[in-house]
């Protein structure tokens, strides 16, 4: 553990986010209050007296915004989005993370970026190991019971990637009878088979980069997942593959925050608004995915709401 990590742990010690048990308890009970609970002013005032010595805001848990530093979780194995190379992270998500942190009032040197895998994302936010997650993190109703989402900062669509010489596949229906690859733990392909009732064979590869390899050597006919993820692979070798450009689901890439941190969530939304207005979002999309034939959306997405 680096000294910085220790600082983070100390910072979270006083907040209820630090204790996964407490949190899980609250979530398991599903009391279902989506707002700040109606605390009596008397109780708030009493709490204020108790916490004044500790210099904390009365009656509220500390927001991510109030920390001196911010640790942001990003992907480290996703080309174009979050990829670790020589200890540095690079990609669209990484640039977005830095932009957001800057707008939230953090200096560049106070921003730490940490790699997270897909399965770790919830636990690391709940456990307080990271303050924020920008890692192709789709907003779903289930996840919203454990994590508060700012954004989405981009709405990716599920699409299909085929090899460049495959000119027959034009819509998702053309996958009938073909071999569709999905990364382990993903359910992208099941949306095609179960969701749309298309009779395709699903093969599970250890990861999507394996799927891309399989597509290259003919072990799979198509790869289907978020178009931004596919575009990241495609950007590495634009001439080898082709988008079918038949988007059929919305994948809302959200900014994961500790559950209930409405203040940070609203700050993130404001920052995303600005990112689109000042042209940064368009530039970043162009920089990372411009070389592909992906149809990019350059207008601000519909936010999920912070409650």
């Amino acid at each position, binding site marked *: 553990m680096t000294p910085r990590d220790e600082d983070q742990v100390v910072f979270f010690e006083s907040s209820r986010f630090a204790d996964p048990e407490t949190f899980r308890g609250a*979530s398991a009970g599903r009391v279902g209050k989506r707002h700040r609970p109606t605390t009596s002013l008397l109780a708030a005032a009493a709490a204020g007296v108790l916490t004044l010595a500790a210099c904390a805001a009365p009656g509220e848990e500390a927001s991510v915004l109030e920390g001196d530093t911010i640790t942001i979780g990003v992907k480290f194995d996703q080309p174009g989005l979050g990829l670790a190379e020589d200890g540095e992270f690079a990609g669209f998500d990484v640039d977005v993370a830095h932009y957001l942190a800057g707008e939230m009032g953090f200096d560049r040197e106070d921003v730490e970026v940490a790699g997270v895998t897909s399965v770790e994302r919830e636990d690391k936010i709940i456990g307080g190991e990271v303050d924020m997650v920008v890692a192709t993190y789709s907003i779903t109703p289930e996840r919203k019971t454990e994590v508060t989402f700012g954004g989405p900062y981009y709405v990716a669509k599920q699409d299909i990637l085929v090899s460049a010489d495959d000119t027959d596949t034009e819509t998702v229906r053309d996958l009938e009878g073909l071999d569709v690859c999905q990364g382990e733990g993903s359910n992208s392909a099941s949306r095609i088979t179960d969701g749309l009732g298309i009779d395709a064979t699903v093969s599970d590869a250890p990861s999507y980069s394996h799927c891309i390899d399989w597509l290259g050597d003919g072990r799979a006919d198509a790869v289907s997942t978020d178009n931004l993820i596919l575009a990241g692979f495609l950007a590495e070798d634009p001439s080898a593959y082709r988008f079918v450009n038949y988007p059929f689901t919305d994948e809302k890439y959200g900014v994961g925050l500790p559950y209930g941190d409405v203040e940070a969530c609203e700050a993130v939304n404001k920052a995303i608004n600005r990112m689109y207005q000042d042209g940064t979002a368009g530039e970043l999309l162009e920089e990372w995915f411009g070389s592909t034939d992906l149809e990019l959306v350059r207008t601000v997405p519909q936010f999920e709401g912070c409650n």
Partner: protein
Amino acid sequence: MTTTASTSAHGPSSSSSGDDRNPSGVRARLRTTPARLWLLAVASVVVVAGLFVSAGSTLGQARDGVEVLGEDAGPQAMATTELYLALADMDAHMADVLLMGTGHGLGSGREVAEEQYEASRTRANEALLQAASLTEGDSIEERNVQAVLDGLGEYERTVGEALLLNDEAEAPSGEVDETALRRYREGSRLMHTDLMPKAFNLGLGSSAIVRANHEEGQDEVALGLLRVGGTGVLTIGVLVGFQLYLRRRFRRRLNAPLLTATAVTAALTVGVVLTLDAAGGDQSRAKEEGLDAAMALSRAGAVATDMQADQSRYLLDPELADNHQQVYLERAQAVLFRPAGNLEEYYGQVAEVADTYPDLPGEGEQPGEDGEDTDPGTLGYLGEDARDSLLPAERGALGEVLSAYDTLQEEDRRMRELSEGGDRSGAIGARMDIAHHEDGAFTDYTEALDRLIDLHGRQFEAGIESGERALSVWTWLLPTATLLVLVLLAAGVRPRLAEYR
């Protein structure tokens, strides 16, 4: 420093900061009984005045808070939320008119659809004006309002052309002209990827403004409440001290007016503190159970409006039908979420929710270790509303909303089955029945939803009113009670002072 008894008695501070180099001056004079009586009397008046000021200003803050939420920020935020609904409604009616083609009499007819389109356009304009005034000074949001205004003009031009092309081609119902369809896709794409997200975000932005104002106000009032309590305790302390001094010095059991003044002060302090607490509670409930719930449900109405427009898009654009069907499911999940991988599963899940309500399927189950395979419960806008503390009338109204929503899904299934079975005109008929402005399944659903929103709206108003009523009493009670304390104080001290004339 002058050492006359009258000036040195002007505040408690002068007794402590007495001039040490001249002990025979101030101290000697303060040792006399009338000087001490004066000192205590003035100290009492000062603390009573302090209590009056702190109670008055905190009550004022609380009143402002309730008023801003009740008359200003709250209704404006609600109006901004309407913008999204109005836009969704415009695109929905446009899709219907295109789908009807030459079949002008389908459903409630083309004329009604066009009238409703215009009405939504007007509502969108009004909501934009509200949004403009609410976001004044916030450059990011102001630019979004402007962008929606501009974009709406472009949308109208684009879909207007689409409609014209379709009319000129005399396209029969369900067979939208190819060029017209391309234009409509452009317009609908503009609406869905640009205008509606911005409109939705504006609504969220105004909710955020309301939340920030409300919480800031509540925090201020909580601090004020502490100040009032503190000053009240101090005042009572001074008055009790006064009483003890009189008792010792004049050997009387009790000074009745002073005792009454103490009692009135105590009552005043407790009364103000309790009122502030109660008004704060009223305001929070008005915001959370009234306004927030009403806004969330109004979003549920807007998303459902867009959802049923996906039905039209599914029929009028066969090439993208799978896409529109998938989007329909996603929007439906936002309105009422139950785990379901496809529409068929979803229909079943919705029926179960409607049947078991007020019990919610999947609630109260402990998530297992893996967390993934467990039932997340009933979520989405309607699910969340069901988990909130509801009044009995609201619970009844939500029950009706859920069963209307279930009927809407049943109709959806019928429409898709007809379409998949090749009966296009049957499917179009089913779609137009759903949208019928008098007895369509969608109309029933929005009417039930409106009743529920109305109940939350009334809860909002009731909370505001109750808070205002509680606070308004003090506009005359506080000065009267303060005056009473001062009069009692005078009545208690005067006879004692008179003994030294």
